[in-house]
C-alpha cells in the first residue's frame, strides 16, 4: 500500500512537471530533498536515543508494567489478542499518554518500541498483526489534548484567544479516533 502511494507521488510529481514545464523545480528538488530528509532524522535522533534510554530503565524496573496495568481496562478491550502482561502494552500506554500531552518527540520512540515488541511474537514477519493495526489507528487518530504548536502559532499571529480551539480540537480528534477504532473493530470481528 505504502509502495503504491510512494510510486504515485513520484510519478505525479515528475509527470505533471514535465507537462507544465516546471521541471526545473523538480530537478532542484531531487538534489535537495535528500538533505531535508537527513536534517529531519538528525533533528529527531538525540531525543530518540535519550528517550529509549530512559524508557529502558522504566521497562527493567517494572514501571512500564505499572502504566500498562493502570490502563489495562481500556487496553485489554482494544487489544484482545495480547496477553495482560505483554511488554508492548506499557509502551503503547506511554505512547498514547505522550501524544495526549502533546509530547510528540517522546511519543515516537515509545511507539517504535511498541511495534518492536509486537513484532517479536508475530508469526509472519512481513505481515501486520491485528494488534499493530489497532495501535496505529489509535496513534494516527492523534489524541492530542493540548495542541501546543497550533496554540503558539495562533498567539504569534495575534489571536485574542489562542486556546479557544482546544475544545473543538478535542472533540474533532475524539470523533476521528473513535471512527477509526470502530471500523478497525468491525473488520476484526468480521474476520472471525
Amino acid at each position: 500500500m505504502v509502495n503504491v502511494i510512494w510510486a504515485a507521488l513520484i510519478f505525479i510529481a515528475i509527470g505533471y512537471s514535465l507537462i507544465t514545464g516546471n521541471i526545473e523545480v523538480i530537478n532542484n528538488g531531487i538534489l535537495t530533498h535528500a538533505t531535508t530528509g537527513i536534517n529531519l532524522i538528525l533533528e529527531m535522533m538525540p531525543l530518540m536515543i535519550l528517550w529509549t534510554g530512559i524508557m529502558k530503565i522504566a521497562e527493567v524496573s517494572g514501571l512500564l508494567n505499572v502504566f500498562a496495568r493502570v490502563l489495562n481496562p481500556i487496553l485489554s478491550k482494544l487489544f484482545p489478542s495480547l496477553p495482560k502482561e505483554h511488554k508492548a502494552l506499557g509502551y503503547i500506554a506511554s505512547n498514547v499518554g505522550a501524544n495526549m500531552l502533546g509530547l510528540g518527540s517522546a511519543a515516537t520512540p515509545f511507539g517504535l518500541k511498541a511495534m518492536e515488541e509486537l513484532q517479536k511474537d508475530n508469526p509472519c514477519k512481513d505481515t501486520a498483526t491485528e494488534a499493530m493495526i489497532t495501535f496505529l489507528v489509535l496513534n494516527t487518530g492523534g489524541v492530542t489534548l493540548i495542541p501546543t504548536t497550533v496554540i503558539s502559532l495562533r498567539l504569534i499571529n495575534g489571536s485574542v484567544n489562542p486556546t479557544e480551539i482546544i475544545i473543538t480540537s478535542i472533540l474533532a480528534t475524539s470523533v476521528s479516533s473513535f471512527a477509526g477504532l470502530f471500523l478497525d473493530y468491525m473488520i476484526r470481528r468480521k474476520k472471525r
Partner: protein
Amino acid sequence: MNTISKVIIPLFVLIIILYGVKKKVNVYDTFLEGAKEGLIMVFHITPTIMAMVFAVNLFLDSNFLEAALSFVKPLFKLINVPMDILPMALLRPISGTASMAIMNDIFINFGPDSFIGRLASTLQGCTDTTIYVLALYFGSIKITKTRYSLPVGLFADLMGIIAAFIITFIFFG
C-alpha cells in the same frame, strides 16, 4: 497550562529514575543499553524517512494539488466550504509540516480568529499524518503487508476532517 507542560517531562524522568533506583536497577547501564537500542532504531528508520520526505516534497513542489483542486472548487462553493482550507485538509494525512505551513498562511491572510482560521486550527489538531506514521512504524520493523491499516487510518482522517468542519461551525459559525 504552560507550567504544567513544563513540569511534566522533568517529573516523568525523575519518577522513572527514582523507581529504578528503588527497585535496585543499575540505572546507568540500563540507560546505555536502551540508548544503544535507540541508536539502532534511528538507523532502521533512516531509509524510510528519506524515502517519504523525498516523495512528499517532490509532490508538493509540482503544484499538482492546487491544479487538481481548481476542478472541484465549484462543488465545494455550493456547500459553503471555504476554498482555502481544502489543500490543508488534503495534505494533513501526508505531511504535518506542509499542512502546518498552510495553516500559518491562513492565519496571516485571514487572521487566526476568523472562521477559517479557527477551522484550520481544529483541523491541524484533530489528526496525525497517517501515511507518514504508517510508513515509519511499519518500515521500522520491515512490515510490507499492511493489510487494512491504510484504509482504516484514512477513514479516521476523513471523519476527523468532517467533524472539524461541523464542530467549528457549531462553536464559532
